[in-house]
C-alpha cells in the first residue's frame, strides 16, 4: 500500500529543476508578479470545477424546487414562465388536503418501522457473521443480493408474490390452512406489505455497515470480558453495542434519509393505493407533479420540500448527538 504513492513523488523530486531556475534568472520582476497572480488565482481555478458542479447540480435544483413551491403554477404559466408569486399558498393547500395527515402518518410509520426492523436484523446478522464460521463469507455475499438487484425487479417480484389471487404467498398460506390476505389491495395491509418489502431491501445495507463496524472492535476486549465471566448477552450489550454507537448512528441516519425518500418501491407495488392507504410524502409529491394528466408542480414541490426539511432535521439531530459524544 505505502509503496504506491512513493513512486511518483520520488520521480518528481529527482527531475532536474533546471527550467524553473532559467526563468527566474531571465526576468525576475515579471516572474514574481506572475507567480503572485498565480498563487492567488490557482486555488480558485482548482476549486472552480467542484464549485460549478455544486451550484449546477445541487444549489440550482434546490432553488428551483423552492421557487416552484412558492408560485402558483398552471400549465399555461409553466410554459410561459410567468407564474405569479403566491407565498405559502401551496403549503397551505398541501397541509389542508385531506390526504396530508394520512400521508404524514404513513411516511413516519413506513420510515421508522422499516429502519427499526432493518437495523435490528442487520445487527443480529452482523454479529452472527462476525463469528467467521465455514461458508460465512458465501452466505454474507448471498445476503447482499437484494441490494444488487435493480429496484424495479425486486418491487415487481414482490408485487407478484403478494398478488391476492395468484401470488405465491397466499398459495403458501392456503397450504397451512390460513385464509388469503389481500396484501396489496386491502387498506389494512397495503402499508404493511410495502414495509416488509422495504425491510428486505434495506437489511443488506445495515448488515454491511454494522459488520465493518464490528471489525474495528479489538478482540482483546472480548477476551478480557470472557475471562471476567461475561455471558454472550452481556458481551453484546456491554461491549458490542456501546462500541458500535458511532457506526450505528451513521447507519440509522443514512437509513432514515434513504427510507424517507423511498418512492419507486411503493409506486411499483401499490401506486400509493388502494385509495391513498399506502401514500407517503414521496409518492404524494410524485402524484401531484406527474401522476395525473394535469401536472400540479407547485404543491408537488411543496411536499418535496417538506421531505427535505424532515431529512434536514434528522441530520441536525445527528450532528448534535455526535458533538455531545465528542465533548
Amino acid at each position: 500500500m505505502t509503496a504506491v504513492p512513493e513512486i511518483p513523488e520520488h520521480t518528481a523530486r529527482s527531475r532536474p529543476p533546471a527550467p524553473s531556475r532559467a526563468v527566474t534568472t531571465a526576468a525576475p520582476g515579471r516572474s514574481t508578479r506572475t507567480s503572485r497572480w498565480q498563487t492567488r488565482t490557482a486555488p480558485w481555478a482548482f476549486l472552480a470545477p467542484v464549485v460549478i458542479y455544486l451550484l449546477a447540480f445541487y444549489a440550482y435544483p434546490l432553488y428551483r424546487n423552492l421557487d416552484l413551491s412558492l408560485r402558483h403554477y398552471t400549465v399555461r404559466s409553466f410554459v410561459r414562465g410567468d407564474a405569479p408569486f403566491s407565498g405559502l399558498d401551496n403549503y397551505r393547500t398541501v397541509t389542508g388536503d385531506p390526504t396530508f395527515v394520512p400521508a404524514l402518518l404513513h411516511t413516519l410509520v413506513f420510515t421508522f418501522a422499516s429502519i427499526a426492523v432493518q437495523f435490528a436484523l442487520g445487527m443480529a446478522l452482523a454479529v452472527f457473521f462476525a463469528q467467521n464460521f465455514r461458508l460465512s463469507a458465501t452466505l454474507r455475499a448471498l445476503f447482499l443480493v437484494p441490494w444488487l438487484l435493480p429496484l424495479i425487479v425486486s418491487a415487481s417480484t414482490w408485487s407478484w408474490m403478494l398478488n391476492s389471487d395468484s401470488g405465491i404467498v397466499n398459495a403458501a398460506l392456503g397450504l397451512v390452512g390460513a385464509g388469503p390476505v389481500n396484501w396489496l389491495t386491502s387498506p389494512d395491509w397495503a402499508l404493511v406489505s410495502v414495509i416488509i418489502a422495504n425491510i428486505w431491501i434495506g437489511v443488506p445495507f445495515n448488515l454491511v455497515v454494522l459488520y465493518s463496524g464490528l471489525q474495528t472492535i479489538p478482540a482483546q476486549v472480548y477476551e478480557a470480558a470472557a475471562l471476567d465471566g461475561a455471558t454472550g448477552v452481556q458481551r453484546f450489550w456491554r461491549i458490542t453495542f456501546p462500541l458500535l454507537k458511532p457506526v450505528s448512528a451513521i447507519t440509522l441516519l443514512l437509513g432514515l434519509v434513504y427510507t424517507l425518500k423511498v418512492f419507486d418501491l411503493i409506486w411499483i407495488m401499490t401506486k400509493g393505493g388502494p385509495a391513498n392507504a399506502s401514500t407517503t410524502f414521496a409518492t404524494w409529491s410524485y402524484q401531484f407533479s406527474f401522476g395525473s394528466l394535469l401536472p400540479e408542480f407547485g404543491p408537488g414541490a411543496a411536499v418535496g420540500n417538506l421531505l427535505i426539511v424532515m431529512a434536514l432535521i434528522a441530520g441536525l439531530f445527528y450532528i448534535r448527538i455526535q458533538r455531545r459524544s465528542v465533548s
Partner: protein
Amino acid sequence: MTVRRWITAAAATTLLVSFPACSSGTEETSSSDSSYAIWDPYPQFDGSSGWVQLLTKCGTDAGVTVKRTGYDTTDLTNKALLAAQQGNSPDVLVVDNPVVSTLAEAGALTTPEEIKADTTAIEPNLLAAGRLGDKTYGVPIGANTLALYYNKKVLGAAGVDPATIKDWTALTAALQKVKATGKKGITFSAIGTEEGSFQFLPWFWGSGAQLTQLDSPQAGAALTLWTDWVKQGLAPNSVLNNTQTTSWQEFASGNFAFGENGTWQLANAKKTGFEYGIIPIPSAAGGTAPAPTGGEFVTAPVQDDTGRYAVTQKIIACLTSTDNALTTDTTLSYIAATKAVQEKQVAQNPELKVWVEAVGAAKGRTSDNLGTKYPKISQPLWTAFQAALSGSSTPQQALATAQSAAAK
C-alpha cells in the same frame, strides 16, 4: 513548481475554452433547419417498423428530413410541456387525446385552422376529445376503445349465450352462472391511475351518470355494480392493482369468462389458444354503453418560426391521408377516425365490425367541454373506486368525497 504551473495553466485554459463552447452549442437550432422533429408515444416501434418508415416517407415527400423520437406515453406530456417552456417543441407531436386540451390550455398547440389541416372527414365524437373552448387542436390518427372479450368455452360450459347480455342484470346473472361452474367471472383494471378511470367510465356513463356530478345516484349504481362483483367474488380482488396489461394476462389464462379490454389486444387475443368473442359493454338499462375513446392526436406545437407550418401541414396531411391512416391504424391495431377508412378496415377484417360500432358510440374523456377540468375529476374518481372496492368506504361515501374534491 513547473509541473504545478503547467497544470494551473491547463486547468484555466480548459475552463476558458469550455465556456464559449457551451454557449455556441445552444445557437445551433436556426430557423433554416430542414430537419423536422416528430415525437410520438410508440417507443415499441424502431426504424424498421412501418410507422417510422411512414414518417420518413412523409418527410421526404414534403422535401425535408424527419427526426423521430419515441417516448413512453406517460413521459410525453411532461416532455412536451418542458419543450414548450424551453421553446424547442417538435414540429409534429403525436399525443394521447386527453392530453391535447392540457397542452392547448398551456398555449403550446396550434389549431388545425392555423396550419390549415383538414378535419372535415373526421368523426365528430372523436374530434371532440381535442376541443378546448370553440377550437379543436389536432387531428385524431385513429381511435381505440373498450369492449368485453369473452371466453367461448367458459361461457358455453356455464350455459350463457353472450348475445343475450344486453344490460347489467343479465351480465351479473351470467357472472354468477360462471362462478357456479368453478370458473371466474370478469376481470378489469381498477388501478389508481388514469388507466383505472378509463376502465370505469363505460360503467359510469352506462349508468347515465355525468362527470360533472360524481355523487349522483346513477354514479352510485355504477360503483355499487363493481363493488358487489368484487365482494361476491365475481371479479378478483386483484383488479385493484391490475393495469390493463395484467388484467389481460388474467383473462388470457383461460380462467375468466369476461375481460374488459381494448382494441389493441386483438393481436394478443389470437395468441391465447382459446376461442374468444367480443361484445360491447352493456349499459344499465340496456344497449351499448358509451366507452371512452383512447388513441392519439397528431398535433402541431407552436413554433417561433411560423414559416415552418407549411411543411408541418404537409407532413400531417400525409400521416392522416386515407391510405396512410389505414396502414397506421392496422399497425397500431386502432380503428380509423374517418368513415371511409373504417369501411376499408371492416372489409379487410370483418372482426373489426364490433369495434367500429364501439368507437362510434364512444365519447372523449375531455369532451362535454370538460377540457382541462377532466384530470381534476378523474383523480378523485379513481380514489373513489379504489376506496369502495377495497372496502375502506361505501360507494356512496366514496363518491361524495370525490365530488367535494373535484368541485374544489
